[in-house]
Structure formats: structure tokens, C-alpha cells
């Protein structure tokens, strides 16, 4: 952890010094770039909201729990412990929600247990796929994602399997 806190500040500092050496108009340039952020966020808001409204209902209705209990035996075939099942299912939908779940797992099993280590690696090998695709495609003309989502989900499951396998040895 020690050195990683320096990466961002040093990179930003280096960028500004480099821009100064090149005598660029940094202030105006920053403002110009920052302007774009507003339109971008305004553009993606309805897409994220629509997805998250569905996820909220899915969890409140208990259907998420049913899905977890149905999928647990399937996941254990891949060597994925049942304790991380809910994380694996929630991960494609909700970024902040899955971080909350990860904290719960740490609390319950202790951060250095096999389950917690698996869960930690899963967070990096998987991605909030539904969120990312909603956001990334929000500014395009694409209506149907073809096989993109199943492919991403399949690869994410593969990543989880690899993660659980590696955690046994490292």
C-alpha cells in the first residue's frame, strides 16, 4: 500500500510541470475539459437509474435471495464457495452495493480467511457489467448488444473460478 498513495499525486504534478515547461494554457484547457463532464453525467443518469431501479426491486422482492440459493450449488461446481455467491450475483449490477457486501464478508469471516481473500480477488476479476454497458453504450446508436452481455458474464464467472483457485495456493 505504501507507495501506491503517491502514484496519482506524482502523475498529476508531473503533468502540470510538463505542461508548464511546454508553456501551455493549462487553466483554460482544464476548464474546457471540465465543461464536458456535465453533459456526460446528464447523459448517463437515466441509463444508470433505469438499471438500478430494477435491481432495487429485485432485492426488495426477495427474488435476489432465491436466485442466490438456486445458483449456489451451480457455483460450487466451479469451486466457488457458497459464501461469496451473493457477491458474485450482485457484482454485475451494483458497484457500491457489492463493496458493502464485501465489507460484510470481512466482518463475518475475518479479512484473512479463505472466503474473504476469494471475495477480495473476485472484486477485481469481475466488473459491474450491466452498469458499465449501460453507461458505455448510452452515447451510441446501438440498441441491441448482441452476445456482448452473456460473453462478459461468462468471462466474469471464469475470472471468479480462477480467483478462487489461485487463493488456495497464494
Amino acid at each position: 500500500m505504501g507507495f501506491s498513495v503517491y502514484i496519482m499525486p506524482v502523475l498529476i504534478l508531473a503533468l502540470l510541470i510538463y505542461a508548464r515547461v511546454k508553456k501551455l494554457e493549462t487553466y483554460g484547457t482544464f476548464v474546457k475539459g471540465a465543461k464536458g463532464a456535465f453533459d456526460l453525467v446528464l447523459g448517463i443518469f437515466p441509463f444508470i437509474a433505469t438499471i438500478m431501479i430494477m435491481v432495487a426491486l429485485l432485492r426488495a422482492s426477495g427474488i435476489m435471495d432465491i436466485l442466490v440459493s438456486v445458483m449456489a450449488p451451480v457455483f460450487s461446481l466451479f469451486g466457488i464457495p457458497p459464501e461469496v455467491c451473493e457477491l458474485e450475483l450482485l457484482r454485475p449490477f451494483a458497484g457500491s452495493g457489492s463493496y458493502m457486501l464485501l465489507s460484510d464478508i470481512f466482518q463475518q469471516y475475518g479479512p484473512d480467511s479463505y472466503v474473504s481473500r476469494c471475495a477480495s480477488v473476485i472484486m477485481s476479476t469481475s466488473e459491474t457489467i450491466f452498469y458499465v454497458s449501460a453507461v458505455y453504450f448510452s452515447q451510441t446508436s446501438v440498441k441491441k448488444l448482441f452476445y456482448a452481455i452473456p460473453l462478459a458474464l461468462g468471462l466474469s464467472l471464469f475470472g471468479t473460478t480462477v480467483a478462487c483457485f489461485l487463493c488456495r495456493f497464494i
Partner: protein
Amino acid sequence: MNKIWTYLMILSITALIFIEPSAVVTEMTNASLDVLSLCVNLLAVFTIWMGLLEIVDATGLGDKLANLLKPFIRWLFKIKDPETEKYIALNMSSNMLGLGNASTPMGIKAMKRLDDGSGKITAPMIMLLIVNATSIQFLPTTVVGLRASAGSIDPTSIILPTILGTFITSVTAIFVTKALEKIFFKRRG
């Protein structure tokens, strides 16, 4: 997306009508509010990153990074547009450093440029999504931080399996996506 969303909505609302009908509208409103506050956060974060990105652009560093990654990006996406290459290069490198928030605006820009306006998804668009979904991570800073605050005796112990795991997943993902591309996009060229 359309079908999945509709069916899951119908299923959830039907179940909730029997369990707790008042929760339907409350849950929807709360979720929407959560997303609104997420977007306020995103706006703040994007403002910083897009401001810095514009400076990176002006210094010509973005083009240099794109030149460095060009052979790889060309092989991966089969594109020749330098502007798109630059966005993809910045998107991929910030992903690897675990800077999800910095990579998103560049990913959106790259995706927009890959769009041919036909309403149909193209092979490079799928590749960009997959590369983003399975990126190699060298610095899982958020998870390490969470582990430290949960009282782990060795919070960084997951870095090695994370790098290895994401590397294996990423390489596999690229080859699987390439293979599927050959099957599904052969004639569309």
C-alpha cells in the same frame, strides 16, 4: 437488455404486491435518489479527470501513449483512427492502474467514436466492453483499503493473486472475443 429488464421488473413487482405493496414505489424512488447522488459524485470526479485529460491531450502525451500502444490496439480493434486509438489507450491504462473513475469518460468517448451510426453493435465495440470488463489490475487500491480497515494482518496479500487472476482472465477474454468475432462478424466486415 429490453427483455431482461421488463421480465425482471414484472417478476419483482408481482412478488412485492403479495409481500409488501407499499415498498414498490418507495424502493424505486430510493434507488433513483441513490443514482442521483452517485451521479453528483461522478460529476465531481469526471470534472477533475476530464479537465486533466484535456491537459494531457494538449501536451501531446495522449498521442505518445497511443503511439506506444498502437500495435496492440490495432491488433485488438482493427481500427486506424488516431483519435479513437488515443481514447482507448488512455481508457486501458487508467483501468490497469485501478482508476475506474478516470477510465469511464474516455471509454464512453471511445465507444461513441467506434459507433457507425447503424444502430448495430460492431466487433470493436464488443472488444472494448470486454477489455473494460476484464481488465488487468495492478493496484486494487479500494479492496486493499477495505481489508486494512477491517483489521487484516496482511491487507496486501491479495495483490499477487489479483494481478495473476486478472491477467489470466484478461488474456483468455481477448482470445475468446477474437474467436467469437471471427464466427459472428465474418461477413459484415
